[in-house]
């Protein structure tokens, strides 16, 4: 019996995914609110306990 097929969304890819979605061309064209939210997510992810 083979292991089940799963697709994992790593938590440490959330901030870069948000940034890529909001600024796909990487021009830095984010609103202050968007930039602050991404920074908060990055900080929260960095503080997560790792198993």
């Amino acid at each position: 019996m083979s292991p089940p097929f799963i697709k994992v969304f790593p938590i440490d890819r959330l901030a870069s995914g948000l940034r890529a979605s909001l600024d796909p061309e990487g021009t830095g064209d984010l609103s202050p609110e968007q930039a602050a939210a991404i920074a908060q997510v990055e900080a929260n992810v960095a503080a997560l306990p790792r198993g």
Partner: protein
Amino acid sequence: MERMPHRHRGGEPPDRSSDLLLEIRRARRALPAEHRELLDELGVQEAVMWKWPDDVIALYRTLGRRTPAAARLVCAAAVWLDDLRTVAFNGPYLTATTLGLDEASRQLALGYVAVHEYGHALSLRRATAEHREDGRRLLGLLPPAMRDHIGRSGYRTTELFDEVVATVYELMVRRVREHGYGPPEFLHPDVLAAFLEVIPWPKIR
């Protein structure tokens, strides 16, 4: 449509867990109607799990299936469980990761994860091996930030097509409210064509 029970485990306050499920449901309701119907037809379910990854593994055990490796699950925000047609969301991690965000930002972050996973649910059912052979080329045609995001995530070549589609899917869905169903001008025609082959996108087919 959600048939899976979601549980309050590990001391998680009920209001936070309910909020999380509400946001995920909101994201699903905001998908194009055809996609909601397709997800329903496919029997796609979602579950917020609080004892992670034990609850995911227990779900497989309950069904008498071989379990995924815990090591693959531990750092996940969410996982698409293909044979169970279920998206499992990591309640503790998503709660901690969205602390300090205002309501709009929290919706954005949770919606990002949820819509990306629903994109997998749609593309994995419809994409072929031939599509997946083209994943690396399509990755190279993405706008720079999207390309870097996927390229640095360590995906295998065979996974790239599905990641490209799920990433483009989230972008397209999020843009609908402000820009309608038309594709962004920065999306390469080959990427858009591949996307449309596996996602029945409204109005521009």
